[in-house]
């Protein structure tokens, strides 16, 4: 595996993004990414590059599962009632999901702020945006809501 640098450059971004989805934490995602490439380095004589990035993603996935086992989230989540309210989807939820003018970044900020109940700082930490950007996206989303939600008669 003499082309490690090329392999690293080719796959680090997708491995990191996958790790971020798998554990939801930037620092931990970097840890898992580093561990996966380190494992690749240690086993460089065994691993065929044509098995990448699947092999790296599998390493990350297994390490993420270990992480969640250690977190003992099973008990915490099991204590909750996980059933969705069976009533018809509320008009505001439909607007958030279906509004064509609401870009993913606006919708994400809106959902995290008013439904997940996050502060701007927490949204910034979760999304990788700055707090100022979060504030701007929220303002855009709320103004769009005011302009179109009532006007379109979705209520």
């Amino acid at each position: 595996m003499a082309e490690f640098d090329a392999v690293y450059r080719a796959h680090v971004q997708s491995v990191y993004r996958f790790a971020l989805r798998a554990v939801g934490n930037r620092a931990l995602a970097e840890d898992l990414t580093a561990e996966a490439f380190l494992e690749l380095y240690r086993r460089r004589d065994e691993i065929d590059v044509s098995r990448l990035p699947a092999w790296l993603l599998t390493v990350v996935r297994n390490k993420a599962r270990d992480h969640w086992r250690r977190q003992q989230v099973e008990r915490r989540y099991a204590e909750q009632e996980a059933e969705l309210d069976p009533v018809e989807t509320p008009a505001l939820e439909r607007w958030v999901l279906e509004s064509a003018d609401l870009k993913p970044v606006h919708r994400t900020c809106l959902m995290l702020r008013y439904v997940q109940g996050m502060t701007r700082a927490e949204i910034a930490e979760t999304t990788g945006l700055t707090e100022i950007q979060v504030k701007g996206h929220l303002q855009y989303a709320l103004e769009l809501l005011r302009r179109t939600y009532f006007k379109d008669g979705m209520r």
Partner: protein
Amino acid sequence: MTTQPDDWDRHEGELVAPVRAELEALRARHRHDPPLELLRAADAGALPDDLHDPVAASLAQSAWQRQLVEDLAEVEPGLDEAARARLLARIQAEAGRSAPASAPVRRFPYFWRPVLAFAATAVIVTAVVVRMRVPGQQPPVTPAGTPAAAVDAPHYVLTLDKPDVKLTAKALVRRSTGRGANFVDDIAPAMNAFRAGDYATAAREFARVAPQYPEAEEIPYYLGVSRLFLNDAPGAIAALTSAQKIADDTFSADVAWYLAVAHERAGDPTAARTGLDALCQGSSAYAARACDAAARLKG
């Protein structure tokens, strides 16, 4: 993680006021949703089995939860140059500490020479980028740089072939939401890049026009295939899953095939097999290939 009223400034309070009760109701409706980090982990297949099932079931039932997971994956930046260089230096340091005594001494410096060169270059580039960056702007998200052909595929059961370019009949009359622009004209730069095999440009252009055409299955489909050629299997899965939700007969089999390709490349052959089994039972042009590939994946 509770939003207190004093976290809202006056302007935000005024904007929220007309829908405050509805937002509270929405929050109450989703109060028992699994935590966000579990939803994302379930979507990535990264939860232990006993935890995966209830969270994945919740995810499957809730368009709200799926949208949140997909949007977040779209919004999050990847690693910038500085982070990539820092991570590389860390791997290098760890590798140095853990190198077995019996490892060939000459191999290590030779192996890391290009890596160090890349790290040094990355640091220099980062310094330039940081100096040029507009304050407050997010670092650019760059896809993996090496063309797929350099490291791709002979060992995958599902080969990655470039699909023919086609459009749905609806594409000819589709217009952008709110702008009245023409769909075919708007996607021309992305399509031209895709035809030319410039997948980085194609992916960037498809992602750019996607918000204007949320109902156009062509965009997430070709975005997903472009990401596959860029070795970004998780990104391809996100795009193709979006395409799957809106694809009509023109694209549904294509989407299912490339989604299976993406799952295999993401290290999830079980998901790939599930998609192939469904294709195998259908009557599309992919049916025979899917039956054969599913059998080989099982083997």
